[in-house]
């Protein structure tokens, strides 16, 4: 297929009855292997990658320093203060957990839906998921005040007969997030085994040979190996699917089981899940658009892939907008004056700027994707994806802070102001995230080579794979 002449707009034109190839260009199995392995094998380090890594590691170090400062000084270094006791730490926690939804959605749910285009992006998205969950997990851990009792989070038989509060969704979170992290990690790792074996077979140095031999668990590519691999993959996908929904459902329970106006509303579970997928896909785009440009992967991660993701963002963004609207409607319809005030206060109270930032970024900006020339333009997509990331952080800010800062008693109202530690920890958490992601880019197979080959035309197959 003559591909070099296609403009992005032509590349996404749909001809019903004809399935467009998932991989463009004159790629063969060999060229895909070369393209992906080269990224990890090339002795020359990519300059952009190095610059990003240095910046990220600096931010990550800043984060670690802040954590130590917090441990040695106390939670008072944050802006958390009466009446806003749940402030940025939980905002950041929910933000990062939300980001961590796209990977497993792409690898599990889109797998069950037989969406073959997922093969180009699932590996990087899964990696991103793990790193986002790592960032998320840090925040509740360091929020407990007495860090030396952090193991109290887990229910374990102990001589003091002390148990965590099983009726608290915060404890359910411990289970939900740790189960999700475990399954995602397993899924990610298992998917990489055939690709690790490829790395092993191509390794020139002894160290790489040993490391990737161990990681590939003696993979030989036998038919029996593949058969079991496929079975395990399907089972893991089926098990991971409810987890994608359960994690953010339980995160939403953290808020919704309470009686705080603005938190206690029944749409929270599906609304949070939609928001998580929304933010996760935005982060995948934020990461993959530069990655495909820097490492020359445009033929593997095509404009068509980006367009599909834009459509998912448009859908989930509209679902989030629906939830915002229904909350307002029921706050009015229900007639509870506190509930009504909570929503009025969000839009027109002292945090109006946060609210309208959220609405502009989450509800309005993804609507631009109705326009085809925007959702096929990588630069425009990149900019909108950043807006969505910002908007989704502000959504959690709006939910957490506005409701707590002004609840039932006007005499106890307050205004939350973050400290420099709050800000540095938020910025620093991006450092942790990007450091891990950049290391992944350099060390591991960033596109699932084995999977992408399964949806490519077979050698000698003239008219393309027919899936």
């Amino acid at each position, binding site marked *: 297929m003559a591909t070099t002449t296609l403009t992005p707009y032509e590349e996404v034109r749909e001809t019903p*009855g004809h399935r467009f190839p998932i991989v463009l260009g004159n790629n063969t199995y060999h060229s895909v292997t070369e393209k992906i392995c080269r990224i990890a094998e090339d002795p020359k380090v990519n300059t952009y990658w190095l610059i990003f890594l240095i910046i990220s590691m600096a931010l990550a170090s800043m984060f670690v320093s802040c954590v130590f400062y917090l441990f040695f000084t106390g939670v008072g270094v944050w802006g958390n203060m009466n009446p806003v006791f749940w402030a940025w730490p939980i905002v950041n926690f929910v933000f990062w957990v939300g980001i961590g939804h796209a990977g497993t959605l792409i690898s599990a749910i889109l797998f069950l839906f*037989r969406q073959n285009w997922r093969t180009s992006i699932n590996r990087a998205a899964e990696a991103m998921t793990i790193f986002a969950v790592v960032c998320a997990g840090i925040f509740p851990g360091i929020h407990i005040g007495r860090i030396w009792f952090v193991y109290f989070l887990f229910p374990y038989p102990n001589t003091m007969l002390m148990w965590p509060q099983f009726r608290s969704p915060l404890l359910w979170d411990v289970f939900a997030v740790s189960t999700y992290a475990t399954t995602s990690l397993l899924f990610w790792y298992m998917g990489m085994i055939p690709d690790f074996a490829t790395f092993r077979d191509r390794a020139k140095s002894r160290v790489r040979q040993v490391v990737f031999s161990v990681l590939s668990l003696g993979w030989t590519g036998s038919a029996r190996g593949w058969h079991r691999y496929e079975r395990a993959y399907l089972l893991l996908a089926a098990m991971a699917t409810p987890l994608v929904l359960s994690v953010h459902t339980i995160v939403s329970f953290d808020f919704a089981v309470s009686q705080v106006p603005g938190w*206690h*509303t029944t749409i929270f579970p*599906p609304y949070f899940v939609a928001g998580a997928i929304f933010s996760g896909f935005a982060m995948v785009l934020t990461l993959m658009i530069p990655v495909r440009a820097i490492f020359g992967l445009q033929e593997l991660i095509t404009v068509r892939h980006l367009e599909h993701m834009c459509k998912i963002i448009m859908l989930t963004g509209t679902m989030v907008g629906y939830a915002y609207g229904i909350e307002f409607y*029921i706050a009015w319809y229900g007639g509870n004056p506190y509930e009504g005030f909570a929503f009025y206060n969000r839009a027109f109270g002292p945090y109006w700027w946060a609210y309208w930032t959220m609405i502009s970024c989450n509800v309005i900006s993804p609507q631009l994707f109705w326009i085809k020339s925007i959702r096929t333009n990588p630069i425009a997509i990149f900019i909108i994806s950043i807006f969505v990331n910002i908007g989704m952080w502000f959504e959690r800010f709006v939910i957490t802070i506005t409701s707590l800062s002004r609840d039932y008693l006007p005499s106890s109202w307050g205004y939350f102001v973050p400290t420099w530690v709050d800000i540095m920890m938020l910025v620093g958490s991006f450092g942790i995230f990007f450091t891990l992601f950049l290391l992944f880019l350099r060390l591991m197979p960033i596109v699932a080579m084995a999977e992408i080959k399964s949806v490519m035309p077979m050698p000698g197959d003239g008219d393309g794979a*027919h899936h």
Partner: protein
Amino acid sequence: MAHHHPVKLDAETVGNFNDLGEAPERTALIVGVIAIAASAFLSAFSAVNWQHFLFTYLVNFCYVLTFSLGAFFFIAVQFVIRVGWSVVVRRIMEVVSLGALPCAILFLPLLAVVWSGYTGMWPWNDPKVIAENHLVERRDDWMNPTMFTLRAVFYFLVWVGMTRLIFKKSTRQDVTGDPKITNQMEGWGALCIFLFATTATFAAFDWIVSLDKVWFSTIFGVYFFAGCLVGFSSLTNLIVLILLKTGKLSPSVVTVEHRHNLSKIMFFATCFWGYNAFSQYLLYWYANIPEETGWFLIREKGGWGFLAYVLIFGHFAIPFLGMMSRAVKRNANLMIFWCCYMLVMHWLDLYWQIMPNMSPDFIPFGITEVLVLVGMVAFVFAGVMWQAGGTPLVAIKDPRLDESIAFHDI
């Protein structure tokens, strides 16, 4: 996957909706009108029975409507995401969605109830309740006969208009085979999803939630939507299985792979319903705020409480385990059972949502329920068959038909 030789289908070989029987719509129409009229007549002689009839009417109206709405939504989704596998069964869904038009006619008596000033149904229609109840009073600008009617007209304009449009376009493609129609429907489909979400949500609030003076729930629109999916997927699957059993559809066109996928949708719908029902209950139970728990309190007592357990186990736990296995989803006889079973459960779900507002203390089930259900189903069936006419059972010139016939799931 190996290459498949495309099967060429034409209107002769696939059969059409007129082949299903000798003018079934006329019989169905007569049965429908007689059953509803008989039930109304039997109930007309006492105020209690009349109220019972009207509530039963609403339950069954919502029941038959959910099939059409679920189908409407799902067809739109198929166009938007360019589904290949489902083309061979999409026509059945399109015909199910045509129920919107007969449902619009069935809604007219409910409008008459509102305009007649009848006070036994929606509390916002009762001046005494409005005067005594601050919560109802403040909604007066939104919940009154004029606004209620305007909104309903809008919902039905969308539903009837869009389902007719999709059907028209799809049947035109049977003749022309123009792939551009498929491209057009992709854009229409996106709009349809948006319109569906808005209209179905507010319809659920208008018709079901507002039966209660106080109660509200932000998830209710999604819960209603889940019900639409349960009803639609079970009905579509059942129709496909019956058409296959009776030889009207060829098993070389609609294969076990398609049936498997339809059953997966049912399984998903069951889980999704459970998810929404659980979310709604847990959050209200946990916070325990009087105006929110009142709705559940009457539904937890006595016979309604028993029915609530029937729903927890019967609508979620049992079918969840029962339909999980791949072997069950691919077994036509077992799936016929599960389809019928889920259709019953879906009816019970709506009954449990609506009836306790009339009869909080006991389940008033009787001959009225049976007559109205039979009548409504027959009436909608007649309306659907009349619209479907001689349309082929399969979208014979859809550009993705070959892909659909060749569909083989791993």
